[in-house]
């Protein structure tokens, strides 16, 4: 009986956590669209949106409203079911990967310890990879269901790009996993918290490769080949209108947020507060500060993403493939072998 009651509480707890995390991701992604425009404007000596609300802060709401009220067009020759499924899938996979991210240390409330992580599965990072590689189906299906040669080409490009960069990403991660000896994200964070340095110190090359690949996975410029408006007149979402297009664009921002969080978790100590020993703080305060820290770290990454986007021009497709297969994968392999040798030598 007691066990049952506990499980109910657990269920409610997790549901609340899921709701909170999804809301937070959505709001963050919403304001990333605003942030992107502001950053772009500042990097180009402009002001950016500043009309809706103070400093343009209501701009994302206005944009969202506009997208909802726009006319929906589904092309006659498209496959209706898949056409609608595409953006849903993109959004779903983008949201799903936040399930295993440890957002903070344990939080005590009403005499219960609440872990700020939806699911501490011990294959956490594999789950992330699985979900992320599902994300390309959103693009693939969208491009295919549009029944349009340009969209199909863009989708093909997107798929081959994601596959080639996921390889390098995975290999660079293996090097990290050799050091941590675990796949659970929470354990990885805790290892970095307890006295030792952040993983980026031991794995700078691995981090660099991971960063570049993450950028390519999110289809961010300079890797935004699936949505090249100049050569593929808009790319995979060419036939999409109103909120379905919005979902595609929005899922890109959620992806960016989640991959920044993952990078912060894997390489930059996750919710570890820099230069502070968490054991000296009250546990609840430490948990809250940890969440803030994690968000702060991910915001820095997001800023770098945007900064790069507004600095570099888009790659040509063959350059992209060359970089992926001839530069990043060999580098990642080298990094992996090097790490393996060092780890063995340490034993």
């Amino acid at each position, binding site marked *: 009986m007691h066990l049952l009651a506990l499980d109910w509480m657990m269920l409610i707890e997790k549901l609340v956590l899921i709701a909170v995390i999804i809301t937070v991701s959505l709001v963050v992604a919403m304001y990333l669209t605003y942030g992107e425009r502001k950053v772009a404007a500042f990097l180009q*000596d*402009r002001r950016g949106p500043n009309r809706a609300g103070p400093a343009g802060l209501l701009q994302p709401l206005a944009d969202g409203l506009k997208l909802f009220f726009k006319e929906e067009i589904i092309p006659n020759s498209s496959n209706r079911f898949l056409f609608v499924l595409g953006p849903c899938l993109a959004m779903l996979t983008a949201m799903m990967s936040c399930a295993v991210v440890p957002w903070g240390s344990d939080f005590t409330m009403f005499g219960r310890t609440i872990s700020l992580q939806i699911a501490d599965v011990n294959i956490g990072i594999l789950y992330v990879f699985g979900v992320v590689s599902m994300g390309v189906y959103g693009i693939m299906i969208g491009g295919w269901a549009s029944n349009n040669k340009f969209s199909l080409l863009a989708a093909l490009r997107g798929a081959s790009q994601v596959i080639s960069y996921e390889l390098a990403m995975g290999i660079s991660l293996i090097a990290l996993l050799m050091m941590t000896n675990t796949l659970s994200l929470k354990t990885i964070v805790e290892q970095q918290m307890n006295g030792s340095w952040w993983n980026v110190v031991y794995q700078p090359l691995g981090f660099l490769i991971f960063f570049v690949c993450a950028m390519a996975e999110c289809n961010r410029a300079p890797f935004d080949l699936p949505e090249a408006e100049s050569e593929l007149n808009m790319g995979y979402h060419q036939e999409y209108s109103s909120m379905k297009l919005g979902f595609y664009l929005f899922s890109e921002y959620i992806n960016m947020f989640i991959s920044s969080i993952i990078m912060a978790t894997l390489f930059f100590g996750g919710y570890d507060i820099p230069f502070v020993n968490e054991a000296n703080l009250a546990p609840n305060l430490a948990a809250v500060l940890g969440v803030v820290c994690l968000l702060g770290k991910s915001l820095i990454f997001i800023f770098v993403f945007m900064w790069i986007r507004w600095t570099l021009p888009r790659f040509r497709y063959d350059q992209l493939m060359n970089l992926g297969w001839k530069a990043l994968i060999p580098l990642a392999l080298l990094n992996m072998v090097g790490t393996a040798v060092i780890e063995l030598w340490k034993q």
Partner: protein
Amino acid sequence: MQALTQRSKPVSREPMSLMERIYLPAIFKGMVITFGHMFRKKPTINYPEQTRPFSPVFRGLQVLNRDEEGRERCTACGLCAVACPAEAITMEAAERKEGEENLYREEKYAARYEINMLRCIFCGLCEEACPKDAIYLSETVTPASFARKELIYGKTELLIPNPVTEPEAFAKAREARKDR
């Protein structure tokens, strides 16, 4: 061959060095440059609140002038219509009646005077052609409109308010035509 500008540079066809082939230093350099732009002064003009000063020779919307006593100056000679390269001006002349001397300056006046703003190229030739100082190009930009026929300006839109009977409207019109 002589270079067209002083900024042209000869293209180097040498193979890239290792440093250049890594790309990352160049990328960092680019990022530093863009970051520097973050804190630059922004040249943006917040349009409805701030307006951009026009050059003194700016040619905007036409205005039909009156003289000091508030009489229309135009005598419907048609020279502006002839001078207009875009054929934007249409007018109908009428004869001044007894007792209308306070309205029109000459014996003949324009009963109808229209400028099609969709055709006008704001060349200012009408202003130059006018022997009576009746038409001027002001410093106002033509407002946009949803209907084409609203852009055919008649006398109601073109004629400046009468300085004698409606001095406030006249002053306002003068002000509005000037400071844009």
